[in-house]
């Protein structure tokens, strides 16, 4: 069975600080990896995804993530956060149509 672990439940940063959110998964087969974001009052939406090729993937709004197969990790990064990045972030792994999500990290960016 696949599982996803997000280490940080709540992160508080000041604007312009750098962000890294951890995500580790456990699954031995081929996986597709996703980061989703849920802004206050909005739907879950895709931030970025990895399914093959370059392990460093870039998403919307300046976010990027690096797939490190040997570490079963897919950490999310942003060099300089903005107040508008305040949201909940979910890491997910999908295989054979079935998606498993982490419990999410709430990011609060102080202006």
């Amino acid at each position, binding site marked *: 069975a696949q599982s996803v672990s997000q280490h940080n439940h709540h992160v508080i940063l000041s604007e312009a600080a750098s962000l890294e959110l951890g995500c580790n998964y456990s699954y031995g087969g*081929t996986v*597709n990896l996703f980061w989703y974001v849920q802004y206050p009052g909005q*739907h879950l*939406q895709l931030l970025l995804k990895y399914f*093959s090729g370059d392990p460093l993937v870039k998403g919307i709004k300046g976010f990027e993530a690096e797939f490190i197969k040997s570490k079963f990790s897919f950490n999310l990064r942003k060099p300089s956060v903005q107040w508008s990045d305040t949201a909940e972030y*979910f890491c997910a792994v999908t295989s054979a*149509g*079935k*998606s498993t999500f982490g*419990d999410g990290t709430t990011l609060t960016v102080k202006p």
Partner: protein
Amino acid sequence: GAGVSQSPRYKVAKRGQDVALRCDPISGHVSLFWYQQALGQGPEFLTYFQNEAQLDKSGLPSDRFFAERPEGSVSTLKIQRTQQEDSAVYLCASSLWTSGGAETQYFGPGTRLLVL
């Protein structure tokens, strides 16, 4: 175009009552997914369809939960004899296709179910 819509947005049910939650996927999307999200947790997979075929229902927590998509578009998640532990947000998502899981899923706003 229109996104995934779900109705009702909120539902309060008395314990033991049956409920039906509806999902309208994005037009033309072949795959449809249901998730249950408890407070403070991530979405948990319930079931998914490819057109009208239910390909995986391994996440349905009990035989009180039943999902259908008879014409390959709109889907209904039915919960019979609701229990308090069924209180959660039920999310629906659709994707153009499911080719091993690389397709992006588009999520609806969810239905918040509260069982008293």
